[in-house]
């Protein structure tokens, strides 16, 4: 196994950790941070692939992912603030009205 491939293993591991955090945590901001972490893992994989294939396509993809992540973080945090205003809490368990 090539050493560069171990980067992919790291990426997969980071993705999984982010996913686990997404399932386990209740704080909305922590959930958001886990999502960012997953995006980062994906970015790492892209860059690794770019290295493997020998062109810049992967890195351009990472660039755009970052742009989107920025926009998304702005809006996501704005949503969290709005929810906080009505529910006075950012625990996801407190905003569970939409149930059977």
């Amino acid at each position, binding site marked *: *196994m*090539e*050493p*560069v*491939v*171990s*980067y*992919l*293993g*790291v990426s*997969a*591991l*980071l*993705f*999984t*950790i*982010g*996913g686990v*955090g997404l*399932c*386990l945590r*209740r*704080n909305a*901001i*922590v959930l958001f*941070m*886990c999502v*960012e*972490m997953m995006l*980062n893992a994906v*970015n*790492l994989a892209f*860059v*690794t692939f*770019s*290295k*493997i294939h*020998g062109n*810049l396509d992967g*890195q*351009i993809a*990472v*660039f*755009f992912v*970052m*742009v989107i*992540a920025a*926009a*998304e*973080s*702005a*809006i996501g*945090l*704005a*949503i*969290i*603030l*709005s929810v906080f205003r009505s529910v006075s809490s*950012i625990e996801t*368990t407190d905003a569970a009205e939409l149930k059977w």
Partner: protein
Amino acid sequence: MSFIEFVFAAVAIGSALGVVGFRNPLTGAFSLILHLLSVAGLYALLGAHFLAVAQVVVYAGAIMVLVLFVLMLLNLKRESGRKMGLLRGMVTVGIAGMLFVSVAGPMLSHFDNLSSVGLSEAAKASEGGVKAIGQALYGRYIVQFELSSLVLLIGVVGAVMLAKRKTVKLEPRQGGMGGE
């Protein structure tokens, strides 16, 4: 894998675990900053120099600052210590395992025959310096680039609209704009 690669990777993984593990979201945020910085280091090691810097500036510098602002604004106490069910924990671990295997397995098994990292042709070509990135962005990917500016605009407008405080309803007869 060289020593420094190993260090960066280990810090990335460790701080990732910290983000998930720390009860206090503020500590988690700092852990995430550490994570982002170590990932930036990994980018640099892979030859994506521009991205490494962009990572530090955008992610660690802007996004995380925003997160910290919001955390401070909300003035949170510790997360309520409701214990998680054992079943949920086991299910999560099981899912995590499955996820890891399914994500990592194909990737790792696919790339058996590769040229080594080093000064090969491929390595040269994938050096992501500013010039190279710039040429690609303004060359092949110009359309996507312009569109991404639109996305940022949406983000700005959306964030402002969402976070605005509720304004008083305007009376039809009265002139002028109300609110802020």
